[in-house]
């Protein structure tokens, strides 16, 4: 799996219920999550509220609670899930991720795309 997908290491590097980070030179840091159901997701590590580091939040279901002001962010879509006026439509970019034979791959174009801006 080369080219299109970027191998970022073994799934065992992230314990369930945790997240780890992948800084991108010249771009936004990426947070890679491992849920308690053993699903993996990647988001830009920036809360749509005030840029809190989502990687440091509590993970429950497929949601992470931002450590700064407790917004709940969907790991699947990056959307803020609360009903508040600020939260409507607030969203953080997700990075397509796949797990294959025990390793995690991110879509290279999405990772690099974050550096273009």
């Amino acid at each position, binding site marked *: 799996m080369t080219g299109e997908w*970027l*191998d*970022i*290491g*073994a799934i*065992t*590097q*992230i*314990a*369930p*219920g*945790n997240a*780890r*980070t*992948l*800084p*991108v*030179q*010249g*771009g936004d840091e*990426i947070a*890679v999550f491992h*849920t*308690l*159901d*053993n*699903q993996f997701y990647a988001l830009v590590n920036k809360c749509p509220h*005030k*840029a*809190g*580091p989502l990687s*440091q*939040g*509590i*993970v*429950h*279901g*497929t*949601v992470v*609670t931002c*450590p*700064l002001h*407790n917004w*709940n962010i*969907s*790991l*699947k*879509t990056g*959307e803020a*899930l609360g009903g508040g006026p600020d939260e409507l439509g607030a969203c953080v970019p997700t990075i397509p991720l796949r797990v*294959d*034979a*025990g390793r995690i791959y991110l879509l290279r174009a999405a*990772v*690099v795309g974050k*550096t273009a801006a």
Partner: protein
Amino acid sequence: MNAPLDMKHVFRGGGDQERLVVIGNGMAGCRAVEEILARDPARYAVTIFGAEPRVNYNRIMLSPVLSGEKAFDEIVINDAAWYADNAVTLVSGDAVVHIDRAARTVVTRSGRVEEYDRLLIATGSDPFIIPIPGRDLAGVVTFRDLDDVERMLSAAERGGSAVVIGGGLLGLEAAHGLSLRGMAVTVIHLMPTLMERQLDEAAGWLLKAELESRGQTILTGADTAEILGEDGHVSGVRLKDGREIPASLLVMAVGIRPATALAKAAGLEVERGIVVDDHMVTSDPAVLAVGECVQHRGACYGLVAPLWDMCRALADHACDTPSGYAGSVTSTKLKVSGIDLFSAGDFSGGEGCEDIVMRDAARGLYKRVVVKDNRLIGAVLYGDTADGNWYFDMLRSGEDISAIREALIFGQAFASGGTQLDPNAAVAALSDGAEICGCNGVSKGRVVGCILGGANTLDAVRASCKASASCGSCTGLVESLLGLTLGGEVARTVKTVCKCTSFTHDDVRRLIVANAFRAIPQVMQELHWSTPDGCASCRPALNYYLLCALPGEYVDDQKSRFVNERMHANIQKDGTYSVVPRMWGGLTNPRELRAIADVVEKFNAPMVKVTGGQRLDIFGIKKEDLPAVWADLNAAGMVSGHAYGKSLRTVKTCVGSEWCRFGTQDSTGLGVQIEQMTWGSWMPHKFKIAVSGCPRNCAEATIKDFGIICVDSGYELHVGGNGGIKVRVTDVLGKVETEAQAMELCAAFIQLYREKAHYLERTAPWIERIGLEAVKAGLFDDAGAVAALAARFAYSQSFMQDDPWAKRAAGEDAELHQHLGEFRPFPAPDLELPAVLEPAA
């Protein structure tokens, strides 16, 4: 072998039969042949090569053969007569070692060459062996074929103990079999949850508890470093954390890899598996492939159900009536007698998805179905899998379930009851004599009677007839009855921990202690949590309640802690951290100050500030640098100040009798002693203490959780103060004469608060809620209470007072501080940096 040549000639009918050669006499290879024969028995002259020296058998039944529940004869699918009757030539015990696509021949190990018109590769999978030292020792086996089972059985005959590496389906079935054969079995599993690909945390926990109760040792989150040996034979394993487990047999069941070597060498397109199209045709139109060795639309399968679908499509194609295979949804059951477990589809939840969870602790049941857009997309069942197939059918058909939505979780029998789709209707249909509350033996009639008699809230019902007042699991039923009897929705009157449960904080605390619960998933199961793994509100609360109830025993659940407590520092708005080392009673010295100054310079901390808690706060430290900062502070004798914790924060002091002209007692010294007694303890919320040397109260002791004001004749003790959002002046608890008494009461008060308050309730609102009299009663009504509480606090503290920073500085939980790697999209050409740097694990 035993090729029935005469039969073959009967079918050959003039020699125009195409020659079909099959590599692999396993489940898929033989089924494909059966499917072809069923469509057109005369079309092909079939030769099957099998590496195993036997006829085709049902591989999945090797588990019951291992455990002794079945004999090999009983699991044979195609006996010798079948091959003969169908004119299929079986060459067993002779593996194909080469495919020559140009010449259209295969060559076997023994040198036999066979020509084909069509070739079918059905080589299955190879067990994966983790590349650790000792993997070649005698006594290391995998679990794939009958030879493996025989190796395990002969080891089991000699007795002793076995280690199974891998807590997936295969590993657990191996462990079960070996344990029934009398071996002492330890399962070593890398992930925290058994069968994590099929189960969620809740079901994984139930499974682990059940296997442990059967005498197996299950080590989750355990990584094997090395297989130990003696005289060339396995003697045990050593884990990465240093633990050693003796064993005379080691079963490696960590996964499988499609067996693609032969296909790859023949130049066929191979990724993870042999790439096939919807008709099971490989990149060479003359070569087909089927079974676990293939990769279809990006997916590889490790279960039999998809093989049956693949074989149908393959046969349709091979007999010129192409249909096409579109991939399979799979479901899993564990074949361990007495354990009912089923999982299918996607149960990762998320928005748009709705989780419906039902737990019945008394019967050991956990059911979870996941619904999205009115369709069932996943199911996990533990304890009762009777409805597994029903859910699986719905899942595969993708039918709209909105009509049975409410009753879905209750299963087929209930959901097809037609008129009773609404659970409220089901409750309405119960007879008056039906028991609602099992704990207190309260019938439906009595509950309704109470409600009609004026008990129009849940609390009132609980108070009048006790229904749902004990374990609480019938709360939902009682609420239904309230709604049915009074009409309309009944507003919830009790404040539950969060939306995941119908229990209050007090209920949960009481039940944890009464039932000796020991783990978060256990509490969730026994107390019927309505979500699979809780939320950001209840997880930290449960973690604290268990920690408080089981000092020294409970293993803290890091992932249930708020970031600051997980990182042992305070997160800032820019994602950096602030670091506050303890300065006992506000005292410091040149060595500490120098170390702080050095840290500020060395790590370029942009700010250092004197806090309102009489100590120094270093700002702007990156998570990667925290362990190094702590190491430097530790070296100067400083430990964590817990400025981040629901825990003892500071003990603020004034200068007291040592220097102050008004000081009556040594307030500074007493403050230091108190801080040394109380630091490190986890509390429902943060806790602040102050000691002032006289009533001028320079340490602001009257707005602290626990405050001491020294007077000539002794010490005035104050509780429940708060200088924060809502200022509250302390209540006076009493007066004592000696430092020792002051300290004992301080410890007793803290322990009472630790054991009674709700999580995230500071002492001020706690005392407002329960009243000062209740606090005094808890401390003074029983003559021995103060001493007993203080002793419990001291016992708990004996496990708490090791500096969390020191452990991190020494390398514990290093992954919390390190990045996964760094991505450099535009590597500097002269540096030749790889695109991603992966830190050594």
